[in-house]
């Protein structure tokens, strides 16, 4: 603490620091997207084909997300099933997700 330190305005982040932080956040996301495009669409297609053998699902109802973390990465597969048939028939089980959702 300098003698006249209290006279100075509180230190705010410089624009260069802001630039660095913005880049670090943005690039973390962009690098995530860089991995995956190679095999994710294929994986999505295969999973859809496998699921279709047992239940009816629309092509656009399967979502795959890859989340890369520092320690672990999670592959999230989200399959949306159609509403169960009307009462009277045995209801189909309704799965929201094959893997627990990463939160």
């Amino acid at each position, binding site marked *: 603490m300098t003698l006249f330190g209290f006279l100075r305005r509180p230190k705010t982040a*410089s624009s260069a620091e802001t*630039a660095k932080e913005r880049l670090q956040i943005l*690039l973390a996301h962009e690098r995530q997207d860089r991995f995956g495009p190679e095999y994710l669409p294929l994986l999505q297609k295969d999973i859809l084909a496998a699921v279709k053998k047992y239940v009816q699902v629309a092509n656009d109802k399967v979502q795959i997300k890859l989340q890369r973390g520092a320690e672990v990465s999670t592959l999230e597969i989200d399959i949306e099933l159609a509403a169960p048939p009307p009462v009277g028939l045995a209801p189909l089980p309704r799965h929201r997700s094959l893997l627990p959702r990463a939160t």
Partner: protein
Amino acid sequence: MAKIIVITSGKGGVGKTTTTAALGAGLAMRGKKTVVIDFDVGLRNLDMIMGCERRVVFDFINVIQGDARLSQALIKNRRLENLSILPTSQTRDKDALTHQGVEKVLDELRNDFDYVICDSPAGIERGAHLAMYYADEAVVVTNPEVSSVRDSDRVLGLLSSKTRRAEKGEEAVKAHLLLTRYDPARVAKGDMMKVEDVLEILSIPLLGIIPESPTVLKASNLGSPVVFDEQSNAGRAYADAVSRLMGEQIEMRALGPERRGLFQRLRWRTA
């Protein structure tokens, strides 16, 4: 066998062509047989920066299409015997560049030179892709500014996936960072990212720091690679980068803007 080095950045206007000319001339000054190639089909400019725009007869595309021999298209630098330039076409479409054609020309140059420097166009399309595809090493030219750093990161991703070395599973293309238009005074004020910040984000080895300098524009006005101006800070910074490219260990110095000597300052005041 030559080393093929691509000068790339993604973003335009950061100093790729200036760097190509400076590193090419610098390597030639150090006795290396060097050729610089312009990959920016339709927007030819390396010839102007090298000061040989009036001597272009045949170009890269003519050679690819078999209309001229490589030796007819290569232009020797007037000042340095061992520096040549292969200009590109100003009128043709970028689709004139083909994998096969580029590979054939590079293979031929590989045998005759020590260094083949490919000046990439901005962007990540055909010209840029082919400029980096056959490279052994890459110099990623970056300004300490958000859009340039972001684009450099994107280009680094392409270097590690969309090059011949990556596709063949060979040793990765060795990428170096060249930070250009660096202004230590603005860094000190907190208005510009520090070298360390950019290095931390991109995490590739640093080849050099080129200060923002009026000498660069002067050199392009004259058509004389900036490294020929050995008194200027930018020229010296490029000379250092050349040494590092050749594998020498040289201390990194962030040279500030030009400083006038005491005598010059006095003269300037009285003038």
